[in-house]
């Protein structure tokens, strides 16, 4: 590959050799270190490629061997430049192209992010944008060390980072700490009570800190205090001496009843897609929308699906250009009505989905009582679902005015 490129740059000729002793000619070329390649025999001699420099040395050999040479084709850069020697602006353009390429190679055009799992690529890219080190930034304006420092101090999850620039590509390597910071730690500075998140009956209560105000079996309304963060310290006379505040922490499970209501209409419009469909493309550049002026949608009833694709040069370098493909699918609307059996199937399927959603939230279902009734033209599935679920919800504790100091002062004044 490299060799053929060099041959092209230096220029070579494809020639036909005929005459008395062509073999001797070849051997003489060999002994004088003239390179010959792609040697092929033809009817009355040989055809081969020879460099321009080699071709100039051939004259004595030709005379010696009584052979004749004819140039069949000239290949290479020297012949090309000679042929286009008058096209001066082309040369100028080529020069400017080279300069532009050199100039643009001083910018970042590709960013690769490795090793992130909690932080998404978008978060890192946004960070780089905030630090003015995003796509199109001059390489000389970027200090990798400062950027690493900023990334580490901005995100505590990042325990190690290395930012390198090779060519026009910036590589951000990140090592994240294995454990995310615990959520509840941020509640440390404030004191919280636990109140009921829903109406229900407490079935289980395990208090780790705080004063429990309910026991298993207590019926609670939404907003009722379950565990207080306020701890009363009493003296021997059963008087409150002091209030201590500590965030409450407890697992409280309650029996909660969910109402369920689902209306299924008997009559419906069925949209069946026909075989007819057509596509339209829209281009969005910056804030400018370019629509296809020749597109015309001839369907009476149709469904439109839009797929939007943002143009990107590398994996991460998204340009402000969006291409949207609209697929118009012709449909036929038909008035239909469900049979009783179908309605029952739909109702039970909806209920199953609803229960599944609840279970995915970690709610334990203990009973369901849903009946399907016909009301006029429609069917209604209604009833209740009994579940066990955590009814913990936090609320800041009201701080009582008596503090230990005040109490003490009062005692002293007595």
């Amino acid at each position: 590959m490299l060799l053929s490129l060099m041959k092209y740059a230096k220029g070579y000729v494809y020639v036909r050799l005929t005459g008395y002793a062509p073999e001797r000619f070849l051997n003489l070329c060999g002994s004088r270190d003239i390179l010959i390649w792609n040697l092929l025999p033809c009817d009355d001699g040989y055809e081969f490629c020879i460099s321009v420099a080699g071709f100039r040395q051939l004259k004595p050999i030709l005379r010696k061997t009584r052979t004749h040479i004819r140039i069949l084709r000239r290949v290479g850069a020297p012949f090309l430049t000679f042929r286009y020697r008058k096209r001066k602006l082309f040369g100028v353009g080529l020069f400017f192209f080279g300069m532009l390429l050199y100039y643009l190679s001083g910018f970042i055009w590709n960013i690769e992010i490795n090793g992130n799992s909690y932080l998404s690529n978008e978060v890192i890219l946004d960070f780089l944008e905030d630090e003015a080190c995003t796509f199109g930034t001059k390489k000389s304006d970027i200090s990798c060390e400062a950027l690493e420092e900023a990334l580490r101090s901005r995100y505590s999850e990042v325990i190690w980072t290395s930012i390198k620039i090779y060519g026009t590509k910036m590589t951000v390597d990140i090592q994240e700490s294995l454990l995310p910071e615990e959520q509840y730690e941020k509640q440390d500075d404030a004191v919280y009570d636990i109140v009921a998140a829903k109406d229900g009956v407490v079935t289980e209560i395990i208090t780790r800190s705080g004063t429990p105000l309910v026991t298993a079996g207590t019926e609670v309304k939404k907003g009722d205090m379950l565990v207080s963060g306020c701890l009363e310290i009493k003296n021997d006379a059963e008087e409150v001496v002091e209030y201590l505040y500590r965030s409450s922490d407890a697992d409280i499970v309650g029996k909660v009843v969910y109402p369920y209501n689902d209306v299924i209409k008997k009559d419906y419009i069925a949209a069946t897609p026909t075989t007819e469909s057509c596509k339209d493309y829209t281009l969005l550049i910056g804030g400018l929308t370019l629509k296809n002026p020749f597109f015309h949608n001839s369907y009476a009833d149709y469904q439109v699906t839009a797929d939007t694709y943002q143009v990107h040069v590398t994996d991460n370098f998204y340009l402000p250009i969006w291409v949207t493909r609209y697929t118009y699918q012709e449909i036929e609307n038909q008035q239909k009505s469900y049979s009783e059996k179908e309605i029952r199937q739909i109702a039970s399927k909806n209920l199953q989905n609803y229960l599944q959603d609840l279970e995915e939230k970690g709610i334990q279902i203990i009973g369901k009582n849903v009946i399907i009734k016909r009301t006029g033209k429609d069917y209604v599935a209604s009833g209740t679902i009994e579940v066990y679920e955590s009814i913990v919800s936090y609320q800041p504790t009201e701080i009582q005015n008596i503090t230990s100091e005040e109490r003490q002062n009062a005692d002293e004044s007595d």
Partner: protein
Amino acid sequence: MKRNDRNTKRREPSLREKMVTNLELPKDLMLGVSVLTVTGRGEALISNYKGILEYKDSFIRVQTKNCRIQISGAHLVIDYYTNEEMKITGFIESIQYET
């Protein structure tokens, strides 16, 4: 008898050959013998030769110091040809040594 004689004589290596063998010197340099490297069926590299005797599409005859090598086949092309070595590509059917 005479022929037998000649054969035994030919098998006897010369002093120069003995020296080269015992001193483990490269034979292509010291004795000027040609080296033929054949890769698969489509490529042959000959070095240490004297010249081309004949070259057709179907065979190439090359003169070396001690013998002639004929490479027969089809669509034989000399990829390059210098004083030191020559590369032949094409479909090789046989390689013969002629004395």
